[in-house]
């Protein structure tokens, strides 16, 4: 095996590990820009992973499963949004409870059901796949991966260029002022959570019916938190957030591939690496200026 092949293998693996993170990161990024620190991301991903496998098994179509995953993410986003930004239940309470709920529910449901394995099909782009080194990793992928090409610019455009995004940013920065201006703060936050739910759902569903082809208990294994770390690492900028995802994905790929190449690394250190990196990024770069000022703060009209 040549070194180029090794690199290509690691890249492929890194991309596969990155994709679910990247989808969810686009969602979390948008939600955080609107001021919600969405802890229930894990629930969204896990619920969607389960829903996609169940649906794929029932309908025989992995694509339908993917859609179902998105719907489940939306549902969880809807529940979170209404509890946190309509009923004003503390968003962390909502997140923690939803995570527990979805973990319990999916773990339970998987015990009383069995599913056939389905995976979405692979698309390989002619010519491009023959580019050395990166050709295979980038251009031989399961088709939802190419959705990222849509989702990333769309998210960017929504936040940075659309009116909706302008209002989201206002809501995440100074909700009181946004309210006075006539923006329905909590509605925007709920909408942001829906977007987040849909994308986290896509990420979770991709993990299940794209990568693995089946569901097992707690299969997201904390990816939601990694994504939150990535958004922090990225200092609330989409590009850097995605860079964070790639970094975490590649690091995992290296960790999983290096032993096969004859190298070993300390595993605890590698598990904490994303969190340490996020902390480090916050310490080294002055990210406080970038943070949405109202992140995590509920909006109640009239309170200062």
């Amino acid at each position, binding site marked *: 095996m040549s070194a180029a092949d*090794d690199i290509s293998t690691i890249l492929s693996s890194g991309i596969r590990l990155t994709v679910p993170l990247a989808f969810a990161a686009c969602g979390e990024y948008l939600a955080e820009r609107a001021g919600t620190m969405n802890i229930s991301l894990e629930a969204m991903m896990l619920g969607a992973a389960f829903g996609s496998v169940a649906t794929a098994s029932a309908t025989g179509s992995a694509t339908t499963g993917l859609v179902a995953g998105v719907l489940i993410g939306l549902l969880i986003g809807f529940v979170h949004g209404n509890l946190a930004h309509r009923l004003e239940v503390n968003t962390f309470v909502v997140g923690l409870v939803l995570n527990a709920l979805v973990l319990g529910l999916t773990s339970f449901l998987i*015990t009383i059901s069995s599913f056939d394995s389905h995976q979405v099909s692979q698309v390989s782009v002619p010519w491009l796949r023959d580019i050395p080194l990166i050709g295979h990793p980038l251009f031989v992928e399961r088709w939802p991966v190419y959705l990222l090409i849509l989702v990333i610019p769309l998210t960017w455009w929504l936040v940075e260029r659309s009116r909706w995004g302008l209002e989201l940013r206002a809501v995440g920065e100074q909700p009181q002022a946004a309210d006075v201006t006539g923006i329905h703060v909590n509605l925007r936050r709920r909408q942001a959570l829906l977007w987040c739910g849909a994308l986290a759902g896509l990420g979770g569903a991709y993990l299940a019916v794209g990568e693995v082809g089946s569901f*097992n208990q707690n299969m997201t294994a904390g990816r939601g938190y990694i994504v939150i770390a990535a958004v922090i690492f990225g200092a609330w900028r989409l590009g850097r957030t995605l860079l964070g995802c790639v970094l975490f994905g590649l690091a995992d790929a290296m960790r999983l591939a290096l032993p096969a190449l004859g190298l070993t690394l300390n595993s605890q250190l590698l598990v904490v690496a994303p969190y340490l990196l996020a902390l480090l990024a916050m310490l080294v770069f002055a990210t406080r200026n970038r943070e949405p000022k109202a992140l995590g703060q509920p909006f109640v009209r009239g309170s200062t």
Partner: protein
Amino acid sequence: GCASNDATAAKAPAATAGSTSGGGTQAGQPDVNGDGKVVIGVLSPGDINDGGYYQSFVDTAEKYATSQGWTLIKRGSVNTSEALSAARALCQQKVDMVALGASELRDAIPASEEPVCANTAWYVPSADNIPQTPKIMLSVDDANQSLLAAGYAAGLLLQERGDTKAGFITGPEVDFTTSAVRAYRAGIRLVIPDAKVVTTFTGDLNDSAKAKEAMQAQISQGVKVVYPYLGGATNAATELANANDVYTLTPGTDQCASTKPKFDVSVLFSPGDYFASALESFAAGKLQMGVKKVWQLGVDPYPTVKLCGDKPEVKEKLDAFIADVGANKFDPAAEVKRLGS
């Protein structure tokens, strides 16, 4: 600890509330507590639907209990810190037997001495790390033996393919996984002295995506036999191996009948197999507390290593090896020490 003198025993509400008359509580019959029905309570530290190691335990219990018309209470993913209270709660449900799914839950054992569990049989799997107490039945096996044999089988398959590179994928890097690696490696080297065994720790027995990536990486490096020593992620990883014509071994259970995924070697050291035989004695009223049953490779039906495919020569060599171990022709522990690192 709580002394189980008469006074407290009388006060223990749930334990004595039944229609137990006198002291007829001993292991003469499966209905140990004499309430007219047989209830088995199983506690497992792992995911009892992982399709592997942990599941086999409850599956066995379930199958047996159903066949006998017994009731089974199973509780999976018991946090080790909660083992004791979980066991007590089971006793309060008037189970006739408390069965622990793995030795991680040994912290529940003190409950066996408590009045609440007075009329209960206890089945405890052990790896020789749990002291015998009067109220429990220990079921001991030596992981070195089965993993060494598994490695031996892998070595034979490698040899057959004319290859020298084997793989091992597991979750966290903790003692039970690292010692498994050592035994497995030693087994392979008994066949191919210069064999190379690559080991990947994914960090999580259930993270299918990472297990698959680890498998992919090993496959790319030309590894032809991989042991997915995993939990919930086993199947996902094995399916990938199947697709690449890589031999795999099962982590504990007999999966030779399975086609999707397909395994090439079944390594049987699952607690379920031991438990099944314990349940048989239990049904016959012969299960004794305060004793230890040691399971010996090559002597007892379990643990053992079984070839799934049809390779008579390999099978012959493997069986011979297992018989040798059973006959104490050599010391697995010493071999592991010698060849494992």
